[in-house]
């Protein structure tokens, strides 16, 4: 694992490159990453991997031109090659809109999601946790599939305007699918601290869902009230953010957001909060700008957009610290989505539904009509009929085609418990379960 002096080392490397460039208009990013993942199938470990890498990125600006170079690996004369490649790119890039580098702000390098236990996790420990999952599954007569992942990332950013940031973050994830003769069940946990992932609890949940999800029968497509688990809510909210929270989407007239207008239920409040202690906090973006909390949807009303330096410059406002590596054509990105909790337990949400569906997990969710927030996807690993306020028989997986805004305009209840979930882009969101008045299943 990387030594505790790494922050100084990485910033020293960045400083050395800036000094060698020797002029304004330079930004250096250094990222060291260590990751390990133990993957299991049929109650056995079938893949088990570890990686260690460092990448250095240089953004070079001047004469209204920008060039970027990046090197992963300890190549010979890294600094010289990095600078030469960025300079060659810059000189040949046509002159255009070049956003100035940010200046230092008052933000601190914290809080950060970091756990020494996660950073020190061993293959033997991971195998032991997977053994627990497999044992729980085997006792139930099922087979377990999934992965246990840990990572440690050091990020350092420095630029010629004086920005100097560093953070060391960790992540840990356990996902588990249990398979019986005629059905599946899913559970996961994500946290920065590996000690907070209870393998037995995850396995028990997956096994319980699997046990209930045997011999599913077909259900006619149609419009049903639904209760979505936090696993499913994460995919829904992640897509919603990508379809409209970015200021670039707004500036290009692609966003569904209409500031000041109520588009959703009063029970819906969504923010991007990079300092939330229950999520995966991280203090700055890929330009080294401190990430500020932004309320995007407040009690159903569209509020604010996320900015990077480029979108902020166009509107003459400060960046909110949501930049991806610059320059890019994608625009700002929500990395720390938090949905406000409600007052209902999961049982309350189910009890409030006379006839509907409980959805454990969504799969392969894709945009169909971005401006209308229309998406499609499948249910997976546990879809159940709700009858008279109780979970009923399992039903076969269904395809939905649904506007997210429309779905969130009729919220019947919000879970009081929230969990960290990853969406398909592996972004961590803090989300509750939701009860929705109508959801359209198309096949």
């Amino acid at each position: 694992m990387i030594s505790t002096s790494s922050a100084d080392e990485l910033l020293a490397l960045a400083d050395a490159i800036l000094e060698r460039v020797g002029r304004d208009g330079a930004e250096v990013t250094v990222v060291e990453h260590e990751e390990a993942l133990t993957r299991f199938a049929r109650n056995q470990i079938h893949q088990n991997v570890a990686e260690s890498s460092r990448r250095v990125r240089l953004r070079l600006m001047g004469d209204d031109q920008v060039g970027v170079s990046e090197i992963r690996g300890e190549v010979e004369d890294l600094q010289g090659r990095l600078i030469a490649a960025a300079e060659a790119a810059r000189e040949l890039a046509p002159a255009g809109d070049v956003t100035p580098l940010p200046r230092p702000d008052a933000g601190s390098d914290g809080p950060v999601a970091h756990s020494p236990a996660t950073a020190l996790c061993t293959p033997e420990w991971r195998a032991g946790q997977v053994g627990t999952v497999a044992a729980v599954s085997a006792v139930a007569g099922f087979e377990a599939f999934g992965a246990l992942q840990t990572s440690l990332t050091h990020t350092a950013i420095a630029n010629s305007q004086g920005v100097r940031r560093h953070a060391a973050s960790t992540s840990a994830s356990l996902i588990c699918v249990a398979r019986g003769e005629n059905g599946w069940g899913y559970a996961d946990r994500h946290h920065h601290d590996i000690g907070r992932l209870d393998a037995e609890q995850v396995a028990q949940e997956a096994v319980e869902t699997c046990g209930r999800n045997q011999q599913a029968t077909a259900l006619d497509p149609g419009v049903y009230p639904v209760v979505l688990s936090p696993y499913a809510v994460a995919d829904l909210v992640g897509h919603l953010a990508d379809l409209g929270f970015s200021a670039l989407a707004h500036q290009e007239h692609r966003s569904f957001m209409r500031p000041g207008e109520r588009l959703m239920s009063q029970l819906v409040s969504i923010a991007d909060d990079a300092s939330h202690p229950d999520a995966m906090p991280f203090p700055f973006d890929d330009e080294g700008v401190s990430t500020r909390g932004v309320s995007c949807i407040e009690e159903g009303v569209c509020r604010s957009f996320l900015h990077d330096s480029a979108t902020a410059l166009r509107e003459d406002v400060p960046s909110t610290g949501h930049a991806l590596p610059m320059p890019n054509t994608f625009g700002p990105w929500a990395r720390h989505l938090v949905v406000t909790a409600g007052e209902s337990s999961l049982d309350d949400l189910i009890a409030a539904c006379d006839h509907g569906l409980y959805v454990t997990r969504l799969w392969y969710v894709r945009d169909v009509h971005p401006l209308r927030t229309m998406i499609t996807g499948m249910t997976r690993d546990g879809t159940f009929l709700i009858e008279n306020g109780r979970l009923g028989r399992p039903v076969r997986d269904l395809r939905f085609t649904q506007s997210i805004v429309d779905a969130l305009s009729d919220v019947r209840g919000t879970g009081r418990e929230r969990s960290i979930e990853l969406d398909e882009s592996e972004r961590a969101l803090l989300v509750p379960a939701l009860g929705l008045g109508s959801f359209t299943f198309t096949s």
Partner: protein
Amino acid sequence: MKEIAELAIDVAVSGGATYADCRVVQRGIQAMTVKDGRFAEVSSFEDEGMGIRAIVDGAWGFASVDRLDSDSLGDAARLACRIARASARLRRQPVRLAPAPVATGGYVTPMERDPFEVSLGEKMDLLIRADEAMGAVAGVTTHEASLEFVREHRLFASSEGSLVDQVIVESGGGMDATATSDDDVQTRSFPNSFGRHQLCAGYEAIAAMDLAGNASRIAAEAVALLSAPPCPSGRTTVILDGTQAALQVHESCGHPTELDRVRGDEAAYAGTSFLTPDLLGRFRYGSEQVTITADATTPGGLGTYGWDDEGVAAQRTVLVDRGVFRGYMSSRETAADYGWTSSGAMRADSWNRIPLIRMTNVNLEPGESSLEEMIAGTEHGVYLETNRSWSIDDRRLNFQFGTQNGWEIRDGKRLRLVKNALYAGRTPEFWRSCDAVAGPSEWRPWGIVNCGKGQPGQVIHVGHGAAPCRFRGVSVRASS
């Protein structure tokens, strides 16, 4: 590179590995984008590292490192062995590998013009011309054109004595024009969506795309889509263009014929497959018109190489023969389960990932029809171009696709442009309804650059040869 690989393998074998292989990879990427005539970016990316896979006590371990000094290599090899021993704690049956000939030799992507020898100025000039042509069309809101070039030097060595050295070169480009109104956003892409079309080829592939020559047309189509009527709903005849046929093959035939999905290796993430081995040779997957192969030797294909990342030679495997399900893409480990040999489809997206079974070039073999003939033979239907949305279940049966363009067909003629087209179905029923595939003159290798699979995630570049094809009685509707 050879010495690096051999050193790592020696350390692994000394550490108890009964089998070890090592890949040393050096990759360079050059990318450039012009957007709205104002934004331009040129970037270069260099990547270098080594990954070693080892079987110890009958189980797999893998470690990778980007430092290629002897100490780091030795540490990585020992870590791979340690990880394998940890894996063995939870392994009932030892890993078995199907036999494979010892591989030696080299391979270089055939090309006419090395894209890294073409000046950045020439490339930027092409992008600026394409971007300007799109921007000149009234009503276009944003427009963007981009190029990407990849050169990857891969060396593979194994404890069985294999040693292969390959240089794979890719050239890709594409553009998007978007038009917006108060209540609609419409985008047209060329030659394909997902940012670009890419081939294992030199700069000649970019020249052949004629980005600048097609820029005005696709921009005008984006604007026209704003006022186009929605696609009519109902069961009707659907004709897919080559790009959409390629994606249909990818999702509904490529993924379900990956043998690791059948074993359950991807069950928690990418999913499983409805094509189980008991169906081999007897399941009617599609109509007589439908023959699908996995061919890592397709000229120009984005999944074309000399050997896969287990050192198995590139080959052609029939997956569906005149409608009947016949085969899988496999690895040495999965093939051994059935007493087969590997189909040579193990690929890793870089040095820091293990190889998985991935598509090579999964091709819908050409038929005997033509787009013109298919339209002429359609009384009522739609011709659908360029993917806009795609989704399929985890067993690869229930799909729904949307396309950017739709053309309503009446009485054998293209009638009018329609928008927001969606079509949906179940895989075997859909392919059984295929009654025509265009011939070799309309067949092209298409490249898809965003195929995701595995944990940790891997994104691989795959090819699909396809031509326009026709399906009867498909469920079609508009998304609004």
